[in-house]
């Protein structure tokens, strides 16, 4: 959104496409930010307001880029638009959701809760338009949604569409995905209910999330009181992700404050290799270090076992400060999972030849000589970055794209 808005606010024509049915990406799924503990949806509201008021910017949701040909200043792109089964008549009144009974795992809550198969992706979804899940499109349930819609917005006959356009420059702002915790077998994410990921924990803390903001552990719905955070879950490990994902230390420090604010006798223990709270984030780290509810153990946890009686995970490892072995029981474990660049669409659509990837598959830039570059990566697609630095990166990428258009236009004029 930032790359698109910044370019549009410089007067450029911008097309913003998103694979998802709504804008906002993973940031919209965060409850609060470090270090101010403010709310990402506040910035989202500002950006949506900027976007609604800017006629130079067009948004296409549920759309993917499937082919690029041409060159800097003159790219021919092929877009694939998935059917939403809901047209622009939709007023988000919610009658379709009332009518259907099928449910799907709610993608907004990482599947921690269910949502009707006719749904608004989240409260600030833009476009503010419902989605009929493809699973019910051709069923009686789909028909129920259609019948319930008072404004004729449900269109079950929608088909996947392909369209071609010419653009001057392309910014890849495809973001990231949490590393698949199942791959870290010693931690038992796939076996133990009370081992969850940091992104899931974020949804638990959100008052608009699946538990109404209560930190309840999945196995028995009891409040989690003794929570372990395992850093570098997947990151900094050549077996999984070789890079450091940058955000996880600060994200965990932030999440320890959710535990503290939940009140009661909640305690956090952070198992870490290095706490990477760089620049002024150090202030936040020092504040958390002084927090009596939080303790730190310098250790890469070796494995997790299960206490079969109470469902508690038991962490095994060595505290490297002094080399003490431990086997510590917690009632909930949060894996601070790493960031992986979300480039499956790029690779799946055979676009790999157009771009250069680094050893962790982050996008370094355009293939070919840099003078020919008309495609730029921004944000977490380019590097594991926090929101602030993603915005910085997107603003820079936006100028790079503007330069391409400027030079193309000046050459044509000359």
């Amino acid at each position, binding site marked *: 959104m930032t790359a698109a808005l910044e370019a549009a606010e410089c007067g450029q024509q911008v097309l913003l496409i998103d694979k998802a049915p709504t804008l906002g990406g993973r940031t919209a799924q965060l409850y609060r930010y470090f270090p101010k503990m403010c709310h990402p949806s506040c910035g989202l509201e500002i950006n949506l307001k900027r976007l609604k*008021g*800017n006629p130079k910017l067009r948004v296409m949701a549920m759309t993917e880029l499937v082919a690029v040909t041409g060159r800097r200043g003159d790219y021919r792109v092929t877009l694939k638009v998935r059917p939403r089964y809901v047209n622009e008549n939709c*007023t988000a009144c919610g009658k379709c959701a009332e009518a259907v009974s099928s449910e799907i795992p709610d993608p907004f809550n990482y599947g921690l809760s269910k949502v009707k198969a006719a749904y608004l992706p989240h409260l600030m979804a833009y476009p503010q338009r419902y989605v009929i899940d493809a699973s019910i499109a051709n069923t009686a349930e789909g028909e129920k949604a259609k019948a319930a819609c008072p404004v004729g917005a449900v269109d079950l006959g929608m088909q996947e569409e392909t369209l071609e356009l010419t653009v001057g420059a392309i910014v890849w702002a495809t973001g990231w995905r949490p590393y698949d915790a199942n791959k870290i077998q010693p931690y038992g994410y796939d076996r133990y209910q009370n081992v969850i990921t940091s992104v899931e924990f974020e949804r638990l803390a959100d008052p608009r999330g699946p538990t109404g903001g209560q930190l309840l552990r999945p196995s028995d719905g009891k409040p989690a009181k003794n929570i372990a955070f395992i850093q570098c879950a997947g990151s900094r490990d050549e077996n999984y992700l070789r890079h450091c994902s940058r955000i996880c230390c600060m994200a965990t420090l932030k999440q320890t404050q959710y535990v503290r604010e939940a009140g009661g006798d909640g305690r956090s223990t952070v198992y870490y290799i290095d706490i990477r709270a760089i620049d*002024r984030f150090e202030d936040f780290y020092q504040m958390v270090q002084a927090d009596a509810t939080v303790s730190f153990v310098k250790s890469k946890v070796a494995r997790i076992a299960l206490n079969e009686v109470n469902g508690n995970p038991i962490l095994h490892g060595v505290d490297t400060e002094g080399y003490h072995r431990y086997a510590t029981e917690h009632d909930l474990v949060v894996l601070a999972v790493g960031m992986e660049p979300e480039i499956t669409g790029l690779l799946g659509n055979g676009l790999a030849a157009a771009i250069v990837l680094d050893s962790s598959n982050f996008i370094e830039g355009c293939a070919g000589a840099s003078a020919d570059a008309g495609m730029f990566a921004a944000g977490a697609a380019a590097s594991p970055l926090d929101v602030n630095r993603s915005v910085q990166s997107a603003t820079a990428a936006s*100028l790079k794209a503007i330069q391409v258009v400027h030079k193309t236009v000046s050459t044509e004029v000359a």
Partner: protein
Amino acid sequence: MADNKFAAYICAGCGIGDTLDIAALEKIAQKECKMAAVKSHPFLCNQEGVQIIKNDIANEGVTHLCIAACSRRAKTEAFAFADACVSRANLREGVLWVVAAGAEHDEVRQEMAEDYLRMGCAEVKKMKQPAGNPDKAINRTILVVGGGMTGMTAAIEAAEAGYAVLIVEKSAALGGFARQLWKRVPFAAPYAEAQPTGADELAARVSGHARIKLHLNSTLAETAGAPGRFQVKIAQESGSVTEVVVGAIIQATGFSAYDINKLPQLGGGQANVVDQAGLESLARNAALAGGVIKRADGKEVNRVVFVQCAGQRDASGQHLSYCSGHCCATSIKQATYFKDANPLVDTVVIYQDLRVPGMGEDFYRSAQDKGVVFTKGTVSKVSGGGSCSVTFKDLILDEEATLVADLVVLATGQVPNAGTDMELWNQVSTDADNGDEAAKTRQQELRAASVLKLAYRQGPDMPQFKHGFADSHFICFPYETRRTGIYAAGPTRRPMDLDQAMTDATGAALKAIQAVENAAAGRAAHPRVGDLSYPIVRLEGCTQCKRCTVECPFGAIDEDERRFPQFNEQRCRRCGTCMGACPVRVISFENYSCDTVGMQIKAVNIPDEFEEKPRILILACENDAYPALDMAGLQRLTYSAYVRAIPIRCLGSVNTVWITDALSSGYDGVMMMGCKKGDDYQCHFVKGSEMAYYRLSKIEDTMKQMSLEPERVQSHEIAITDNARVARLIDDYVAQIKEIGLSPMKGFG
């Protein structure tokens, strides 16, 4: 005014028509609100409905319209009409979805809807179509202060997008700190080897660029004006002064290394104890001589120890409390200088947390492969001289240890070159204004030490954020500064490495380009980008109280020679804080004024006290509190139908007259809803909530005179996620008001 034609359009869709009496609403719009045209439609936001409105504007001369339908946050594009003033009466999220279902609530629900319609009509009648700023500010040149890597990058990136650039550099050459480096850390795969800095090549490109003009050996002597029309005096070392006009400014004044002499405990000031810059100097000398890195005394180095966080991450309050971010990777790079030349040199990095985020991890691995030793420890003492020693606690072995070395490198931090400490400036200025002669002298010194030398009422530099960096306060908006059209980039904004500084410079260049384009078009800058309204002041009513000049969060208002406020529209962000501050209400925006809100407050029908229906006014920040109310509706949470909510630009724009008018006309309570205040404030106009709290304290006397309980005005910090909380707060407040009893002022308004 003769040409104005007012119309109201009432939507019956989304269940509005099933639940509310549309005919009664139409009648109110016609009879009470005297709207010239009133139409209802079963589905106003669809093509047909929108076309009706468009036709009325084109053919019937409708200039002002109130759309009574969903929230202003919904169907925004459908209901945007470029040639008309539009108000939105929120019948869906604001009434239908939040008032409890059931016939027993029909009466209060209908009353609420009717009031919102009255308010929408009253508001639009007082609105004018913003004409844009007639004071054209069309200069598009970008001034870059500082010719280091950040400044050069900003300059070249802006120039490559077609903009003219001026660089003002204090020293005799471009290149800045990067010129002192032997090599830099790698920015690209395989992230294994130190790389040439590229500073010389970039300096050559900048020097030869047709759109970039250099002022070397120069500093700023004065910066006046506003975006699109900054008048800048550039002083040469020789004493000559050049006057230029520029459109926007990028401050890329970099950092200074923390003074190693402040670290005597760590050997600062002693022979063979150097900082990272000192090591770079030794490395460059070695390269020039064609040999390995030697000490200043010419002796070979067999063991070098790097001490991380020297004078950084300091909890004692003596040194830098923050982390400079780049130093771990820099020490790794410097260790490889030795290892690459001679693998037998012992290189030890003593660290607390090794901080090489992202792909820096690969560079770390590469150094480990080369045999660089990393030890987790805290260093307590370093002594320099012919044989240096480093005493530290080894945190892994849990024991005290000492290493003897030929050379010790202290990783000291970055201190921003952000100019005058603006907090200090404010204190000194207050004293100077009160006639303190010493303070006046001090003020002159501070001005002389400033970077930008802004001729602004609020001082000569950008207000700094934490630790003296000229940073933005906002995570979502790293370039949201408090001086419009002036953007800090590089280590003066935040501690950072070269790679980030160059990205930052590119981003700042884009923001500068936007600033000049916005100024030229008379539009607001972020966050109300595109807003063509601007503060209009009736100077003949002004009492020269200076509240607007002092309270403007962006330093947009100066004073002219007659001591009247001088509005610099291009510096204005349109928050309305000046409007809220003005005791004589002479400041307004064409589409947002004391009247547009005041008339909404007056438009509400206040039932007499025997009906026992309280009326509570909510003034809600449009960015956080109002969306929270909206989303309570979207979630179908219910709250009392006795409240009437008005979205406002910022709590800072709330003029106390609205509150006193509301109370004297019989409202039973007022709830102000703004953003969090304090150090971690969330107000995008900086101090909206703070100002509101401050001003509230000023109306306590008025309330006493009216014999009103202080509880009748409340202020809340509301986050955008507080949907459920806001509904609860409303219900609790209504209960509280019922307990206190209805206002005695009813019927007097």
